[in-house]
């Protein structure tokens, strides 16, 4: 059993590849040829999002800049470091700032918080670079126009993740940056209380859209950046937006495969 047809003893990996353990996990056994490799990609829930085969010249660094892959890698880094930070950070007015101080000064490997912050800056940059590359190589053209739109949504979600994370250190910079940022929501048409059309939404003398019922209020949970705003931004940053962005990322990667793989240089 442990010998092949020629009577030689088979190696451990080869034997393990035929074992029930391996075959119950990777259903197609050890990929030994092109067909086997293709099957193992197609039958894996993670790998099947990725194109089965790619032209060698299309994945040159000179062509792709690996910006999309880097963005995804940085997202993974952010997810892992973010989960670690959640073990120490408490999103309350009383503790938020001191917990951040704690994270960088007292918690072992205080660099964790900095990695999260640097990676956040980096991800915005790589996403922009990725978008620039896709635009310059014309990879947004049919049949990839839908995936371009998914990419735009991913860009917006990336910026929203950055924005919501901005408030969490709860220092002066954070509070006033979010104050300024969310003041833009006042001017939302119909939904913001200072926006165009908001005055039209009224019953008699009663304004339906006022500072206590508009879209800015829904975002902050109050009329100014306070305790409720900190909690809402924390929940959106840690659960809400990551949940949505993962769904769109899965669509984005899967559509690359479905739209005929990565574009090839002209």
């Amino acid at each position, binding site marked *: 059993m442990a010998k092949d047809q020629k009577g030689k003893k088979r190696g451990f990996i080869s034997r393990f590849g035929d074992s029930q353990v391996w075959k119950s996990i990777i259903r197609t056994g050890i990929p030994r040829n092109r067909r086997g490799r293709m099957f193992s990609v197609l039958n894996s829930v993670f790998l099947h999002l990725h194109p089965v085969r790619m032209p060698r010249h299309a994945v040159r660094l000179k062509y792709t800049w690996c910006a999309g892959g880097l963005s995804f890698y940085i997202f993974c880094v952010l997810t892992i470091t973010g989960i670690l930070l959640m073990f120490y950070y408490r999103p309350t007015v009383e503790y938020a700032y001191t917990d951040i101080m704690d994270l960088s000064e007292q918690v072992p490997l205080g660099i964790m918080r900095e990695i999260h912050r640097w990676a956040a800056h980096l991800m915005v940059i790589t996403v922009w670079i990725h978008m620039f590359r896709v635009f310059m190589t014309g990879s947004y053209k049919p049949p990839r126009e839908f995936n371009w739109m998914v990419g735009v949504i991913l860009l917006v979600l990336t910026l929203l993740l950055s924005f919501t994370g901005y408030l969490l250190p709860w220092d002066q910079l954070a509070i006033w940056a979010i104050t300024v940022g969310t003041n833009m929501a006042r001017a939302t048409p119909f939904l913001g209380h200072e926006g165009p059309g908001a005055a039209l939404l009224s019953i008699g003398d009663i304004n339906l859209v006022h500072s206590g*019922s508009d879209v800015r209020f829904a975002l902050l949970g109050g009329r100014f950046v306070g305790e409720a705003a900190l909690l809402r931004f924390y929940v959106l940053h840690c659960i809400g937006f990551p949940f949505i962005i993962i769904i769109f990322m899965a669509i984005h990667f899967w559509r690359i495969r479905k739209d005929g793989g990565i574009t090839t240089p002209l």
Partner: protein
Amino acid sequence: MMFPMDKHKNIPNDVNNTEENEQSSRQTDEISSDSANPQMDSVDEQNLDSKKPEVPKGEPEKNPSQKRASIGKGSILVEPIKRRSFFSWLTLAWLAFTAATGTFFGIMLRFMFPNVLFEPKQTFKAGYPDDYSVGDVTTSLKEKYGVWIVRTTEEIYALSTVCTHLGCTPNWLKNENKFKCPCHGSGFRKTGINFEGPAPRPLERFKIALANDGQIFIDKTKKYAYEKGQWSDPESFLRV
């Protein structure tokens, strides 16, 4: 032409009646070349004729194989939707499910707007007019209520502490006699009128009045803007 599954289905037919199987296979051929070949067309009619008399008119068809929709000649043999079965329990169930889901999305939206806010009130009393000395800007209410009370020789007014540029909170600089915003450097005179920095318009004033007990009453829900000429409104200042 045939899929393996179809072949499998036809096996019992083969056993029972080879002729019928031949007919049916001919029929499928004709569907594709119905109008193109008049000869075949006549054969098709023959086939249909041979089958038609078996089904009495006006009665529901018993043979399920004849319910199949076919192309051409308006012979779609699908049972019409009856009036009574249109609103079936399944339809009702789906409608109820959709309505419940829609309602829940409404509830989710409402959930984001709490009934009680743990914020300082929008309307409050701010002491007696005599508590404020002439020429002073009172900053003690800034932290809690976001209001500066200014008393001049003729009037008392309540200025909003929200910068009209991007909404930061300026500081009152007594020595320089101006409000200065730390975010982007907007400057306002004691009256609230902007004179430097990016602020596009003067600070807003709130409704101010005397309550029955003689105290100053401020209502932050009513704002008065200089550029709209609202500072001449008697509710925007308190004459002393």
